[in-house]
């Protein structure tokens, strides 16, 4: 497969996954602040902080309000990680490799793009009541994943798409965990109270994990929620699951057994998977959740850099802009 094509497939999937996760991200915050549960007031600052784009936001919008944060995360084309920018970038990458996608995948990607682009006429309504729009974004992302499974041969192209989706998802699950970290409870005493449970269940809900969590652990216990989102072996949005899947995708591409590594990308992803396999949640909490999540993000970035070097780099090539991790 052409290096350029592999690169575009990887980024196309990554941007679709990113758009979906921004939608999840916004929802977790609305759940956290809506309904007057326990008397929290809406806190939009943490969302911006956890998105990693705080600086760009403050520069352009100043004090975060519901409207400004939603606008920044949904419609703002200058924010490269807004839903709109992600879907534009996904389609642009898809367009560059249109000939390798299945027809139905391309049509869905194009439909997704038109839908998000045309939503701009409804901007104010969506900013007031974003739920339906965000749901549509998630559905489109899921539809694309389904189409990939149902219509694309499970060869190299498929694996590069899988790799992109899973790395992105691992990163975003870690960031959703961070939202909780940044969301300040009204008083330190509230830790472990009903209010705390409300927040944790909102978090689980935003990753579609609440029902799955309940089946495994039952009642909400913060350590177990973290355990589930970070280390669960079977839940498809847990960091472990994503990293292990990315490792398999890489080895399926190179054909090298997971007992070995043939490039630094395989080496790095293997190390991270190994660590997640043999670490308990107690160790992670002892180390500090935020510090741990931070280090996972750094290592995922490193894996991305190594993948780029191993598969996408071209000798004569001067890429004008590298895509953003």
């Amino acid at each position, binding site marked *: 497969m052409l*290096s*350029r094509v592999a690169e575009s497939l990887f980024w196309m999937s990554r941007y679709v996954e990113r758009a979906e996760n921004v939608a999840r991200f916004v929802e977790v915050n609305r759940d956290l602040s809506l309904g007057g549960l326990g008397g929290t007031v809406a806190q939009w600052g943490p969302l911006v902080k956890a998105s990693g784009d705080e600086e760009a936001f403050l520069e352009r919008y100043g004090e975060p309000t519901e409207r400004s944060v939603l606008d920044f995360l949904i419609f703002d084309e200058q924010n490269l990680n807004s839903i709109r920018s992600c879907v534009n970038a996904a389609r*642009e990458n898809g*367009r560059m490799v*249109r000939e390798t996608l299945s027809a139905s995948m391309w*049509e869905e990607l*194009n439909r997704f793009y*038109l839908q998000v682009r045309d939503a701009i006429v409804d901007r104010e309504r969506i900013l007031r009541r974003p739920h339906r729009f965000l749901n549509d974004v998630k559905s489109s992302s899921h539809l694309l994943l389904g189409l990939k499974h149902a219509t694309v041969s499970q060869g190299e192209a498929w694996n590069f798409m899988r790799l992109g989706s899973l790395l992105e998802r691992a990163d975003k699950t870690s960031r959703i965990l961070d939202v909780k970290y940044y969301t300040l409870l009204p008083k330190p005493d509230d830790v472990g109270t009903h209010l705390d449970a409300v927040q944790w269940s909102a978090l689980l809900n935003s990753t579609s994990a609440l029902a799955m969590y309940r089946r495994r652990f039952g009642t909400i216990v913060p350590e177990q929620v973290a355990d589930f989102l970070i280390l669960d072996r079977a839940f498809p949005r847990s960091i472990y699951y994503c990293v292990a899947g990315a490792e398999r995708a890489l080895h399926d591409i190179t054909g090298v057994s997971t007992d070995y590594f043939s490039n630094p990308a395989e080496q790095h992803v293997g190390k991270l998977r190994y660590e997640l396999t043999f670490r308990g949640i107690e160790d992670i909490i002892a180390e500090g959740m935020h510090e741990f999540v931070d280090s996972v993000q750094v290592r995922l970035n490193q894996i991305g850099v190594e993948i780029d070097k191993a598969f996408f780099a*071209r000798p004569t090539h001067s890429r004008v802009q590298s895509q953003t991790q």
Partner: protein
Amino acid sequence: MNPIQFDEYGNANDEVAKQVVTNLLDGLSFEDLQLRQRAASEHLRMLGITFNVYGHGDGVEKVWPMDILPRVIDAGEWAMIETGLKQRIRALNLFLDDIYGEQQIIADGILPADLIETATSFREVCRGQRPPHGVWTHITGTDLIRHGDGTIYVLEDNLRCPSGVSYVLENREVMKRVLPEVFSGVRVSPVEDYPELLLKTLIETAPDGVDNPTVAVLTPGVYNSAYFEHCFLAQQMGVELVCGDDLIVDDGVVKMQTTKGLQQVDVIYRRIDDDFLDPSCFREDSMLGVPGLMQVYRDGRVTLANAPGNGVADDKAVYAYVPQIIQFYLGEEPILANVPTYICADVEQRQYVLDHLDALVVKPTNESGGYGIVLGPESSREELDQCAESIQKDPRNFIAQPMLCLSTVPTITDKGPAPRHVDLRPFILYGRDIQVMPGGLTRVALREGSMVVNSSQGGGSKDTWVLK
């Protein structure tokens, strides 16, 4: 001026064609037609079947309008067009062989030597070069028009990188979806096998000694106006779509950079102009090409389709000589008519052109896509003066032709079906044999009275039905 108009529906005189036309116009109410038209447009938008417009304000991608009333060509007339096109392609390939070889046609005084010497599209680097199997024009998209007198003329030969064939295939798909009942019961020649024939053509013209050639489509990239087509054809043929920086010359052959290392490429269907193919041979500033590509080509280790250097044969001044070219190489009378052409490089002809500017169409000799054309009868005094000045400054760069009146085909408008002017671009493949795709791309000028059919200037397209 109010020229006689020829309507393709109104003048149908073949029994089958008459029946089809009647079914089309009387079978469906206008409301129904409009409904189908909207369905077709929506379908194209959802499929993302677009072309790119340079310097257009609202996004570079546009959906190309397609009108659902097809152009209809009867079997007898098509047979004549097909034979005429094959004759022309045979002659032009022999001409290219000769002009980059012995130049017998100049020695025999048929073609003036300075016509070739001054042609910017003549590639000195191709002298003495013969492409694999002697095929220069693997893919041609000849522009035909029918004048008010009913005669079909060849307007341009387009031997370089003609585009539009993907729209022919997509238009047909759309028509099957939105007008299924019209299709059943009519015997329309199929066009769906084009990708298969194209792939065969490319494989057949691979360099000698290559058994299982690897074919690739070379595109200038996602912002090119025909990018959709490049993707479409690569996908339909199941070959890689490559950009210049995917390719590298290594070890005397062309290779593409893959996730598993370098892989040799034997046949390149290139959709970039000669100028940009190889910065070490043509334009140094080209970012689109592959340094060293031309040397590999000259060594006979890669096939470029179409061959570099073709442009000299569709230079608009050389065009004027195609009837003589056919005579010279084939000893036959041309089957398809040439538009009478005045060559401004010739003193007498130039004077005639300057005296009759307001009645003529003036065209630059080395442009395509309708750029730089001055329509005399529709231009202001000022524009004509400007045109005369340009001609005098660089006469070799211009030709002039009488104003032809393109035939019309009924087209859906807000007020019902109304005549709009059309042309026709059939596609001709040349591998082991010459094959003509039945029909081709019918382009239509959507503005009332307009004769400009180019997609970049308000044109649309129609499906073309060659009846059996």
